[in-house]
Structures are given as C-alpha cells and as structure tokens.
C-alpha cells in the first residue's frame, strides 16, 4: 500500500532523454564490430558469466600452485643415498657379467663348469641295513 508521500514522489515526471542522442548512439552501436568468433562462447557462458569466470580462475590458481609447488617425490629421489648404492651395485653386476662372458669367449670353462658332476648316491649302506 503506497503512502501519499510515495504517490507524490512517483508523480514527478523525469526529464526526457535528449533526442539528439539517438542517432549518435545508434550509429556507434551499428558501427561496432561484432565479435563473431567469440559469439558462441559468450552465448554459452552468458547465463552466469561471473560463475564461469570464477571457476576458470580457480582452475588457473590450482594449476599455478601445482606448478610452483616443490616436487617432493623427485627431490627425495635425487637426494636419496639409495640412488648411488643401486648405481654402484648395477655397475658391479655389469663388470661381473662382462668377466663371465669374457671367460666363456676365451674357451676357459667357468669355475662352476670345472667342478665334478655329483656322483651317484651310494646304496651300499642301505642294502646292508636291509640285509
């Protein structure tokens, strides 16, 4: 319910829009280049442009934080003493393998090959036990 005061106020006529503005504003609007390539994007984003912009900004922040954060796993890998040990062990194995291969090529049987094959099991004592 409106009061008399409100009725008095809304009865005051506002100044008219200057007529000469029409041609200038419409000329400026018609001369404005349309953003055709971005039109589909704006129509897609239009219902909530601020929300989409906020979401995009949040993703950019997350991405930047991810990039700037120290790579803990990588740092641990680089600084770990295990890396040097495993490298040394691998080198030892490589040298050993090279030695083995080298001795095979020279015709010398490896140490394992020179050992006598196992003899058949002696059955004497068992027979004695049965007999």
């Amino acid at each position, binding site marked *: 319910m409106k009061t*008399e*005061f*409100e009725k*008095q*106020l*809304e009865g*005051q*006529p*506002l*100044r*008219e*829009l200057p007529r000469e*503005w*029409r041609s*200038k*504003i*419409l000329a*400026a*609007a*018609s001369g*404005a*280049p*349309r*953003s055709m390539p971005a*039109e*589909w994007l*704006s*129509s897609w984003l*239009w219902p909530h442009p601020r929300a989409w912009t906020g979401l995009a900004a949040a993703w950019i922040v997350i991405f930047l934080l991810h990039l700037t954060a120290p790579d803990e796993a990588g740092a641990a890998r680089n600084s770990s003493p295990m890396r040097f040990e495993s490298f040394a062990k691998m080198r030892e194995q490589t040298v050993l393998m090279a030695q083995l291969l080298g001795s095979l090529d020279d015709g010398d049987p490896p140490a394992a090959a020179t050992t006598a094959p196992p003899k058949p099991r002696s059955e004497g004592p068992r027979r004695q036990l049965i007999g």
Partner: protein
Amino acid sequence: MASTPDIARLYDEHAPAVFAFLENLLRNEADTRDVMQELFIKVARRPAMLKDLRDERGFLLRLAHNLAIDLFRRRGARERQAAQLALEPKPLFAASADADEQVFRDKLAEALGELPADQRAVVHLKLWERLTFEAIAEILEIPPNTAGSRYRYGLDKLRERLRPIYDEIQ
C-alpha cells in the same frame, strides 16, 4: 542475431527508462551518455545476449547498473566528486510551470543525490519504474529483502529531508 533495426527498437522502447535510471544513479549527463552508448554497443556486439529474453527492460537496466558500477570503480571517489562539482548538474525532473512544484522537484533531486547510490537505485526503480522488490532484486543482483530495506531507508531519508516543503505543498 539482433540486427540494427532490433537495436533501434530496443532503443526506442527502453532508452528513456535506462536514461532516467542512469542519470539518477550517475548524476552526470556526460557519464550517462557514455554508459548508454557503451550499453548499446555491447548489445550490438553480442546479439546472442538478447536471445530468449523474458524481460528486455530488466535486462537492459541490469546491464546499465553493472556498467555504472564499473564506471564508479574505474574512477576514484575524489575524481568523481570533483567532476560533479565542476559540472552544472542537469535537472533530474522535467521543468514545471508551477513555482512550488518546481521547488519541490529541485529539492527532491537534491535529496535523491544525497542518498547512497545503492538506496537511490532501489528508490528509482520502485518509484519511477514501478517494479516489485523481486524484479528490483534481479536487476541489482541483491536479495529481495535487501531491496525492501534499502527502499525503506531511502524513503525515510527523503521524507525527513522533504518534510517542510511537502507539508507546505499539502
């Protein structure tokens, strides 16, 4: 896609309301013209914005309000005040042949100018656009209750400020 005649139709149907709202909000004719031009250029550039609109005027008023807020932010408060003082303010209301009525309109324009911009926007949309608080809330992107309370605060201030003249006219 909105063609030039569409923009002309929009202008003819809604520009007077947009003009009055912006002039009450900005209190500067040059700024009002700049913002109106920016608004229609924006609409002409992105005709997709006009697709499936239920309320063209509400949409244009919201766009006008956002552009006015952008202008406020771009300019510092001090610069805005200096610009307003430097310019002879254009009357907000139509001239009246009746002297008392003219005094009332001048005082009303002054009193409106003293209101904070957010209350002034609500008072304008309620009194001169005759919108509901729900519609005002949509345009200004605020809750309807906030629109209602801003209107009541604004109206109380106007009543207080205009009481001597208003009683005299009554």
